[in-house]
C-alpha cells in the first residue's frame, strides 16, 4: 500500500524515531534526553498520520508531548541534583544487561519473522473520531470505565502525596 512518496516519508520518520531514541539513552545531559524524547514521540505521531489514524496522532502529541514529557522536563528543572548534571551512561551490570538485551532482540526478531501479518483489504476509515467514540461507549465501555477509575485513583493519590507536608 505504501508507494513512492509515502514510502520515502516512512523511512524518514523511522530514521527520526530510531535516531532520537538512541539519543535519548545516550545523551549525557538528561535535559537533552528529554528533548530527544519529544522528537521521538513526534515521529511516532507522523507514523500514525501515515496510517491515516489522525485522531491517534493528535492524542499522541497532546498526551505524550503536551503532558508526559513536559512533566518530566519540570521534574528535571526542579530537581537541583539533576539540573545540568552529567549522568553516567553505563553501570556495573554490563554482562547481565548484554545477555538480557540480546535475548530480547532474538525473541523480537523471531516473533517478527514468524508471524503472518493479517492485511485488511478495506479502505481506511475517514471518520475515525466518531467510530472510536461509538466503540468506546458500546463494545469497550467496561475497559474505558476501568481506565477512568485508575486515572481517578492516581489523581487522588497524587493529591494525598502532595498534601503530606
Amino acid at each position, binding site marked *: 500500500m505504501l508507494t513512492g512518496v509515502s514510502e520515502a516519508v516512512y523511512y524518514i520518520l523511522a530514521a527520526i524515531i530510531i535516531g532520537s531514541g538512541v539519543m535519548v539513552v545516550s545523551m549525557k545531559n538528561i535535559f537533552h534526553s528529554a*528533548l530527544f524524547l519529544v522528537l521521538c514521540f513526534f515521529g511516532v505521531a507522523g507514523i500514525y498520520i501515515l496510517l491515516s489514524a489522525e485522531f491517534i496522532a*493528535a492524542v499522541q*502529541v497532546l498526551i505524550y508531548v*503536551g503532558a508526559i514529557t513536559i512533566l518530566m522536563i*519540570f521534574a528535571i528543572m526542579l530537581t537541583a541534583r539533576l539540573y545540568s548534571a552529567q549522568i553516567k551512561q553505563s553501570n556495573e551490570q554490563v554482562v547481565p544487561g548484554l545477555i538480557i538485551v540480546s535475548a530480547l532482540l532474538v525473541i523480537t526478531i523471531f516473533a517478527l519473522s514468524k508471524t503472518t501479518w493479517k492485511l485488511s483489504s478495506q479502505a481506511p476509515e475517514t471518520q475515525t473520531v466518531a467510530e472510536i467514540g461509538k466503540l468506546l461507549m458500546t463494545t469497550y465501555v467496561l475497559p474505558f470505565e476501568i481506565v477512568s477509575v485508575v486515572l481517578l485513583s492516581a489523581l487522588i493519590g497524587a493529591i494525598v502525596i502532595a498534601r503530606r507536608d
Partner: protein
Amino acid sequence: MFELGKAFEAIYNWLGSLFTRWGIPQFWLDLLSMFLVFAAVLAFITLSALFLVWWERKVSAHMQVRLGPMRTGWHGWRQSIIDAIKLIMKEDIIPAKVDKAVFVIAPIVVFVSALMVYVCIPFGKGMIIKDLNIGILYILAITTFTVVGLLMAGWGSNNKYSLLGGLRSAAQIISYEVPLTLSVLGVVLITQSLSMVKIVTAQTHVWQWYIFRQPVGFLVYLTAAIAEVNRTPFDIPEAEQELVAGYNTEYSGMKFAMFFFAEYTNLVAISAVVTTLFLGGWNGPWLPSWIWFLIKTFFVILVVMWFRWTYPRLRVDQLMGFAWKFLLPLAFLNLILTAAFA
C-alpha cells in the same frame, strides 16, 4: 462579491492545465501549490504582525492619552517596519555560558508551532489549507510544542530569571489548557464534528453563532486563550519587576524578534480560532467571506489589547487558583449542561 477562495482555485486549475500540457506529474503540482500556499500564509502572518505591533502601540498610547509613534510616516505607520529592520541587522549574540544548541533551536520551535496552527484555520470559503477532520484537536495538540520551546529557552539560557520565566509560562499554559479544551468541547458537542469547516457551516445565521448558544464556553475560552499566549492580565512569565524579561532575557536581535513575532502570530491564531468557534467564522452578509473573517478576527484582537491596557497583572498564586478553582469547575458545568440539553 469577490471570493478569494475561488481565485485560488482558478490559479490551481490553471497551473494544473499547464502541468498536464508539459507532462509534469501531479506530485510536483501539489508540491508547488503547497509552497505557494505556505508563502501566502507567511506573508499574511508577517504583514499582520507588523501591523499589530504598530496598532498595539497606538491603542495603548491612546488609552493612556498619549500619541504613540508619530515620527515615521503618517501617524508613525512605518515604525514597526523600521523596528523589524533594526532587529534583523543587529549582531546575533550567543552568550558564552548558554547551552548553545538548545538556545538556538528554542525560538524556532516556538515560532514553528505558532505557524503550524494556520494549517487548520478557515480564512474564508474554500480558504483552508487542509480541512482535517480532527481540526480543532490538531490545533490544541500542536500548540503544546510552544511549551517545549519556552522551556528550552528558559533552560538553555542558563540564567535563573529565564529559567523561572520559562517554568512559570509552562505551568500557566498547562493549567489553562484544561479549561480551554473543555470549553471547546461544548462547541464540538453541538456541531458533532471536530472539523473547522463544519463548525463554521453550523453557524450560518447570526442566532446560530456559538457565542449565543455557548456564552459561558466563549468566556472560558477567551480567558484561557489570553492566558495561553501570556498576555496581560496573565503575563507573569515576563513580569518585569520580578523576572527582568522572563524566558527571553538573554535573547537579542533576530532571535528576540522571532519570539516577538511568534507572540503576535499566536495572538492572530487564537483570535482566528475564537472567530471560527464562537463568532460564526467567515459567515456574514454582503461582504466576501474572507473580509468578514478578517473583520471579526481583528475585532477580537482589539478586545484582547483592550484587556491588556485595562487590567493589572495577576499574582502567580491568584493565577493558578483562578484556573483550577474557578475556570475548571465552570468549564465542567458548561460541558455537563451542554451535554444534557444539546
